[in-house]
């Protein structure tokens, strides 16, 4: 599939921490404007996949992004190329204020519109605006997740990576969060790669999905195909 329109193209990706290899050669791709979900149990290698893209662990194989190879690059360079990563646990800067958390999101940008983006995101997430001068550490789980997404988007990335955004949030908050992600993708065309365990809510947003088990792609297909696949239903949807 090389030379196709894919924004992110991963082929034969191996990833390991020290001697322990976690990904044993996986292939997947993300088209521009698409929302792709990777499902998997604990320890399947979901988080490692995102960390591999950002070169935060040792990788083998090809990671093509917009025609450039990411393998072997420094994390800061991957970020400069336009990939934003919302880590598991949201990666908040507790000692910085909410506003500073957003400002640091735009660290790599040189353009002048950072201030206007800032006010725009405060409109999208009014609750963050109320707390702009409070230290980010004092926000609730849901608020920190919103802050993390907004911070990532402040960098105007071409591809947004989200690591289990639903983790530790009440169901209502998760619904609300994924509705906003859907809206952001629809209105601003931000391409997203979401790694999740919560399959039901992920399928609502996803265009395509993969199932990852023990470091290998077990299944792939459009969201609808997988949603109706009985094995997936029993394993990930619980009915």
């Amino acid at each position: 599939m090389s030379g196709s329109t894919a924004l992110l193209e991963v082929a034969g990706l191996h990833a390991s921490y020290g001697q322990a290899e976690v990904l044993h050669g996986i292939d997947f791709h993300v088209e521009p404007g698409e929302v792709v979900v990777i499902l998997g149990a604990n320890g399947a290698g979901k988080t490692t996949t995102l960390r591999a893209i950002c070169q935060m662990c040792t990788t083998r194989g090809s990671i093509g992004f917009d025609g450039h190879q990411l393998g072997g690059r420094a994390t800061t360079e991957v970020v400069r190329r336009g990939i934003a990563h919302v880590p598991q646990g949201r990666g908040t800067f507790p000692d910085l204020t909410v506003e500073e958390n957003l400002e640091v999101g735009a660290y790599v940008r040189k353009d002048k519109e950072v201030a206007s983006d800032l006010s725009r995101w405060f409109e999208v997430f009014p609750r963050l605006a109320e707390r702009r001068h409070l230290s980010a550490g004092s926000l609730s789980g849901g608020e920190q997740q919103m802050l993390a997404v907004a911070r990532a988007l402040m960098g105007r990335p071409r591809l947004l990576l989200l690591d289990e955004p639903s983790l530790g949030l009440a169901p209502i908050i998760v619904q609300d969060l994924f509705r906003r992600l859907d809206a952001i993708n629809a209105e601003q065309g931000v391409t997203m790669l979401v790694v999740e365990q919560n399959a039901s809510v992920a399928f609502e947003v996803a265009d395509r999905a993969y199932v990852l088990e023990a470091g290998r792609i077990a299944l792939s297909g459009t969201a609808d195909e997988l949603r109706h696949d009985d094995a997936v239903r029993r394993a990930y949807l619980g009915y």
Partner: protein
Amino acid sequence: MRATRWSKPAAFVMAVGLVAAACGSSSKGSSSTTAGATTTAGATTTAGATTTVASGGQVGDVIPKATNQPYGQDATTKTLYKGAGGFQIDTTKCPSDWNPTQGITDKQIDLFISLPKAGPLAGFGLIADGAQSYFNYVNSKGGIGGRNIVLTSKDDGYKPDVTKTNIDEALQAKKYANTLTVLGTPNNLAVWDELNTECMPQLLNGTGAAQWGDVENHPWTTGMQLDYFTEAKLWATWLKGKYPNGAKVAAIVYNNDFGKSYEAGFKSAIKGTNLTLVSEQFHDATTPNLDNQYTTVAATNADVLLLSTTGSFCTQGMAAVEKGSWHPTVIMSGTCGSLAQFFGPLLKQGLTGKGTNIIQTFVDVNDPANANLPIVQAYSSWLPKDSPALDPTKTTYFTGWIFAWYMTEILQQANSYAGGLNRANIMIAARSIDQTSPMLIKGLQSKMNGLKDAYLTEGGQMVTYQVADPAQLGKFVPAGDLLNLEGQLGTYAAVKKALAGS
């Protein structure tokens, strides 16, 4: 995944960016050593001072000669040696493998010195370089009966355990005749018992503690300088003269054995007089400056301020007094006698330190008035030739000369004794010194008298620092008569009684 803040509190964080007292100036600080030289400017003799010198105490030459003293090995019992003041050595009491001529060959005499050469107190280690340069001078003039004096110095960083290791190794090496100028009271205390049992002469200890006069229990150990206890007694004598109808005295004291010796000496000396000690402020090695102490003593508005401290604290003390509104009579420790080292830094702050009184025992090599003294001429011409890297104006080297001069006198006398130059005779000579060192200020004597007088230096001349031009270093001018307790102190037993009484 917890938001891993960078320095997780639970993570083991090695604290303390401070090694503070650690390798810095340890709590010991620049304490009880002769640091900064006890040299003080010689004085042109004022009318009052008696210049006649008691017989037998004639001033020694630049290189001392033997004065055919009638001491040494007993003609009949070869293991008995006799010296001045009834002092005797019975070598049968020494260990069986004791070798009288260890460290002495017909070519060379080996001496050993352990003192801080590295670390915070390395400033004092320069004494060894000074002593070596004097020995080189003596060797260049034929040495001791043709024997060269060789000094081996080991660094102990002023730590008693390391001094003990150095001395143990020196003893085992069986290479040295005696030890010389070991610095630090606890350092010497750590090894004096062993040196006495090994019959190894521990000569001219470089500290002002009174213990080195303990001739009864530690015959093989002697001190050299005016000990701080006696110096404080001289302060009291001088103050009695200056304030006949009494005075209030305040003191800033270094919180270690050095400062405490002054305190004990002064208290014992003013008992029963009309001098009263109204306030004593201590400071330790980690005090940044003496402002707190100065403010407290200034509040007492005493007539006299004693600066029983050393190192840069002396300079800070003088600066505090000059900058403050209270102007008492200031008496400072003799260890801060060097103009260049302690008064020099004041000039740069627009201060002078004038009016400060100090007890001088030795001449100050930087004082132009002494330029014509033979010893000063020998020093100023020899030092640059022998070791060009050393700066002659740094008086610590001259202090080295003072110790080395006494050592040379001891070796010369021992060489002339019956039984020839050996370690027993060296010890006898050390306790029978009768020549006055040319480095002493005029009128003072340096005499030892066996069991009767175990202290070499027991006198001093109080001088006042006067400044003509504030931009230049001034000079010391004698204030009052020579204070001479020569022969009156006796031994440590007597001093201990006075101390116990204080």
